[in-house]
């Protein structure tokens, strides 16, 4: 799939290459990237659907404020992907609507 992202990486050296999975795709990233940046650089624009209207959304503010970059990261829902650095083998999924709650083992 061609990368038609409007975002271009600056030429730089010294950061190690890693790969992450977004749904069933494998995406290249550089150590130190935020998950949101790596996904935008790969040309993916829609990373969640809102809980109320179901409208598509993608990362926007890239500084932890707007909450539009919510994704499921390594099984944990509603993470702010702009605030999480990529790690090799990380598994990312779009956040589709509201998260569910599981009967936890909280309390004793």
């Amino acid at each position, binding site marked *: 799939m061609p990368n038609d992202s409007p975002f271009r990486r600056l030429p730089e050296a010294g950061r190690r290459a890693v790969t992450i999975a977004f749904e069933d795709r494998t995406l290249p990233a550089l150590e130190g990237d935020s998950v949101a940046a790596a996904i935008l650089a790969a040309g993916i624009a829609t990373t969640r659907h809102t809980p*109320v209207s179901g409208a598509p959304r993608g990362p926007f503010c890239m500084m932890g404020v707007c*909450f539009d970059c919510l994704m499921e990261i390594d099984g944990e829902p509603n993470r702010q992907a702009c605030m999480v650095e990529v790690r090799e083998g990380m598994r990312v999924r779009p956040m589709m609507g509201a998260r569910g*709650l*599981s009967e936890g083992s909280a309390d004793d």
Partner: protein
Amino acid sequence: MGDKQGMGETEYAVIGGGLVGLAVAFGLQREGRRVTVFDEGDVAFRASRGNFGLVWVQGKGVAMPDYARWTRLSAALWPDLAAELEAESGLDLELRQPGGFDICLDDEELAAGEARLGALRARLGGDYPFEVMGHNRLRRMLPHIGPKVAGAIYGPEDGHTNPLYLLRALTAAFTRRGGQIVSGPAIQDIAPLGSGFRIGRAPGWRAEKVVLCAGLGNARLAPQVGLDAPVKPNRGQVLICERVKPFLPYPTAQVRQVGEGAVQIGDSKEDVGFDDSTTPRVAAAMAKRAVRIFPMLENVRVVRTWGALRVMSQDGHPVYDRSQTCPGAYLVTCHSGVTLAAGHALRLAPWIAGGEPPVPYLESFSAQRFAVSPAA
């Protein structure tokens, strides 16, 4: 919106553009009155934008049965108010009145609650519905309660709404009916004239009648028109969690899930003066309690917190008064602007418009009660 604070004239000046002021203003319009609302700027302590959103009956008026009666009347009128506002504004107020729970974590708490409401029921001649539920019974209605929950008191008339949509709908309905909201500096001065009132510093606005709905601001305004509004702030803190799939079909006094999915936690009460900030200590205590009630909240993120100031009279009950020395001046203040919105719009406002008292016990809410029983 509206003119700057300056010259103008109106039939009714409502001081305060929160839920109380707008409910009264909307109710006056329904009676055919011409109303101008004076709203402070965003520096105001806006209880209407920080509250929890319960339409709540149980526990109110334990020390004053007339307050329980009035609260129940307003809760019963709420569907009418919501239908009218939804038709006029196009907004969904997310009103749900399936009954609500006051969750108790230990048996003593549960017994104390039962005793309080039982005493109120006796004073109301048996006409006061509530049910005490132990853990197992409660679990059938709220399957996700934790093992440490002792039980709850169920109030069949309790419910909740989206208070921000209520505020927006009242604003929309009021302005759509031709009402004007004058935003600007707080009104500090009200002067009785030979006939009517001057609102604000000279030249100010001129109004035939004035209704004080300024929350905590009423304390300094009321004496200017022969009224007494002994109200003080009481801080509540609120935690807002991320939106989750529906898990809580009933509101509780401690935790509720709003119509759009977010989980709201907040039942703190602090006497800290005019300080509406948040503190980690209270937030942590509330969060811990919420997780004991619903353990599945353990991993849910808090995305926002805020503090807001309740408007509390000495006994916590509303104050409704009409000035004896300055005819045409009224006072409406309470800490339950959401629950009482229907009563204010559909019953109290017609009285302010010149009608009969809406209930035979209206005088119970006069501030004169503080003078006759200073120990209360």
